[in-house]
């Protein structure tokens, strides 16, 4: 139960953060990626704000033996810089540049009562299934 309350609070904070920073607006994101046009560096400031907190506090948290409501930390273990990582990130960037949405803002924008992010999220889920179909033999 505790973990569920925490993830709900974390989700709400994340969603409000995406709203306040206006990253929930795909045009704002596209204006960041449009470096040769009327460039809007706001997204870099969002990352700076988030990284200021996470870089410092993650360090302190990970000195603990375990998280407060679970037995151990579940962190990614892969280390290799493989073609999958680079190819996947490259593809993700293309889709991001086509739409202005990455997964977080697409889901949060549904809460604004818009139709566009619903279609975006369904398309992302279709992509997940396609990935599973292609790579999980």
């Amino acid at each position, binding site marked *: 139960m505790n973990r569920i309350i925490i993830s709900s609070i974390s989700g709400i904070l994340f969603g409000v953060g995406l709203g306040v920073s206006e990253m929930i607006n795909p045009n704002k994101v596209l204006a960041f990626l449009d470096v040769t046009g009327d460039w809007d560096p706001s997204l870099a400031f969002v990352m700076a704000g988030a*990284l200021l907190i996470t870089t410092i506090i993650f360090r302190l948290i*990970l000195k603990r033996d375990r998280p407060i409501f679970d037995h151990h930390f579940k962190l990614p273990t892969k280390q290799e810089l493989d073609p999958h990582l680079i190819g996947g990130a490259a593809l993700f960037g293309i889709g991001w540049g086509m739409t202005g949405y990455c997964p977080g803002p697409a889901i949060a924008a549904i809460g604004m009562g818009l139709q566009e992010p619903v279609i975006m999220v369904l398309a992302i889920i279709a992509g997940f299934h396609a990935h599973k179909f292609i790579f999980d033999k």
Partner: protein
Amino acid sequence: MENFTPVPAFAGGLLIGLSAVIMLLFNGRITGISGIMDGIVINSKHGDRVWRICFLLGLVLGGFLFKLIMPDSFIPRDGFSLVLLITGGFIVGIGTRMGSGCTSGHGICGIARFSRRSILATVTFMLTGAITVYLIRHMAF
């Protein structure tokens, strides 16, 4: 740069950072949205779904609260190409699974842990994102 909004951007970033800190401190998890979604729709394990669903519902509620508090913050875009949206969304889905993460997991949580994979992924998707926008907006592609 007339639309540049450094203060709200930074403030929103702090909230996002706080969200990731709470998730790690209490639940021991990385706040990566595509990974959280994946654990519901693809690699779903018994007893590991509810927290994910609650996080995503919280995310939607966060968007709703934002709209409630600041209803006139921006005008949602209208008439965006459906083909571009669906194709782009599909590519985001494949890419984030192939590359094990998106802006949140790699860009915020991964870089904070100085993960080489996340740093490389973030540089890569920023670069291909910018190239894609350049091609669409300035090459009439």
